């Protein structure tokens, strides 16, 4: 790309906000009641985090992997790719993330209880229960609500929250794509002058806090 410094964010936006909203609206209508199933999966992940059952990391990450795979196929590949020629690349990234969650998720070493888990539960609960409200709050109406498990941004934020609660170093490998997805999502919304860009960016940063705090433990604290 020559004269790259002359490009602005809006130069990369191929569609209008109206078209984007219609895409989500038609997608939501087409996949119903998948949203209810996805929300149930979100509640199940919260329950797993709060529990002490064996293999809870593996089960939670498998549920998330199914969501990532669904979004890759049903939203990014089949629908979003119609208006954004970069969407197939994003779909590939989602499929890779699903694979990583299945293969590496079991070794996440989630603590049992504690502040990290409580923090993750709070963020995931926000993604499942509150994030869909952003659509009506921004005068878009319920049909354009973005729900956990079926659309990228709330799913990526919830995934970051779960991974950031883990103690294993491999969490950073698993966090890479969700953080990238949030960056792309926030920039897309920002280019459309949509304040939800701030929710995505701040939500991702907020969800990451437990991981960040463990990288920089307060002086005198034990590892």
């Amino acid at each position, binding site marked *: 790309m020559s*004269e790259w410094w002359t490009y602005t964010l809006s*130069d990369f*936006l*191929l*569609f209008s906000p109206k078209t984007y909203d*219609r895409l989500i609206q*038609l997608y939501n209508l087409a996949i119903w009641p998948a949203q209810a199933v996805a929300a149930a999966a979100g509640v199940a992940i919260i329950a797993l985090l709060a529990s002490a059952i064996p293999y809870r990391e593996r089960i939670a990450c498998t549920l998330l992997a199914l969501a990532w795979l669904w979004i890759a196929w049903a939203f990014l590949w089949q629908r979003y790719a119609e*208006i*954004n*020629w970069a969407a197939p690349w994003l779909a590939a990234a989602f499929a890779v993330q699903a694979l990583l969650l299945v293969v590496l998720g079991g070794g996440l070493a989630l603590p049992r209880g504690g502040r990290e888990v409580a923090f993750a539960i709070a963020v995931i609960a926000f993604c499942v229960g509150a994030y869909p409200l952003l659509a009506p709050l921004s005068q878009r109406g319920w049909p354009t609500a973005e729900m956990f498990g079926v659309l990228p941004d709330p799913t990526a934020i919830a995934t970051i929250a779960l991974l950031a609660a883990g103690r294993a170093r491999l969490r950073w490998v698993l966090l890479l794509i969700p953080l990238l997805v949030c960056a792309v999502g926030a920039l897309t919304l920002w280019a459309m002058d949509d304040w939800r860009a701030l929710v995505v960016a701040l939500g991702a940063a907020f969800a990451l806090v437990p991981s960040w705090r463990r990288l920089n433990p307060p002086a005198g604290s034990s590892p």
Partner: protein
Amino acid sequence: MHDRSLPAPGRRAFLQRTVAGASAALVPVFARAQSAPLTRNVPKTGEAMPAVGLGSWITFNVGSDPVARSACADVMRAFVDAGGRMIDSSPMYGSSQDVIGDGLRRAGLTQRVFAADKVWTSSGAQGRAQIEQSRRKWQVARFDLVQVHNLLAWREHLPTLYAMKAAGEIRYVGITTSEGRRHRDVEDLLRREPLDFVQVSYNPADREVEERILPLARDRGVAVIVNRPFRERALLQSLAGQALPGWSADIACTTWAQVVLKFIVAHPAVTCVIPATTRVDHVRENLAAAREPLPDAALRQRIVAAVERA
């Protein structure tokens, strides 16, 4: 009496029918003459081109949404009904080519438009295949014009386009740039290559092309297509707070959009400006700007001053 009275009404009726028939035959001609937009000749061939065309960046990228596709078809129908011809797109514009092809076919307008598209791939080897894929999406027998999008891999694509033109597979060859990028390269190509069209950004706020590119295109007999006339609405949004000046009536403008379009069309090097829209009323308003009177040099300066104040 009955017999005498018959011929008179008969003659009157005959005359009335004759006059009415002649009027009916003539009115559409006058109406067409009245409503036909201004045309500019493509310098290389003399082909008449309505001075306002239709762009498709963002506006026609609506995917498979049937409601939005139908609205796009309505826009194209209104565009052609108002005398428009050139529709411009690119493989870069998402689903726009599919939407154009679908809308033109549904409205039965495929044969009536000047189909302008682009080649947009960094691979010279894939250029021809991409153009063929684009042609199938448009559902046209051939493109009238194929342009190298933003000069991407122009060294590879221009020979392909010249060969296609020589073989009758396309009619014209062009290059494009936008937002003032790579103007030195554009100048260089205008001097060296046998181009038919060049596409650049131009409006009262972005006038860099006035200095060298527009005069050069005119000297070299290259038709000029103008993109981003409204800076993707930003220009009109900045003007929205200003009341339309009194002098806008002198050039028969009722909106700022028409003022901007007339400013562009009035430049003697410009062949066609391609505003994009999703609205039928806007496409009619845009085509109505391709009418006399156009602003003279003094009035064009006043338009620039008004835009700079905004």
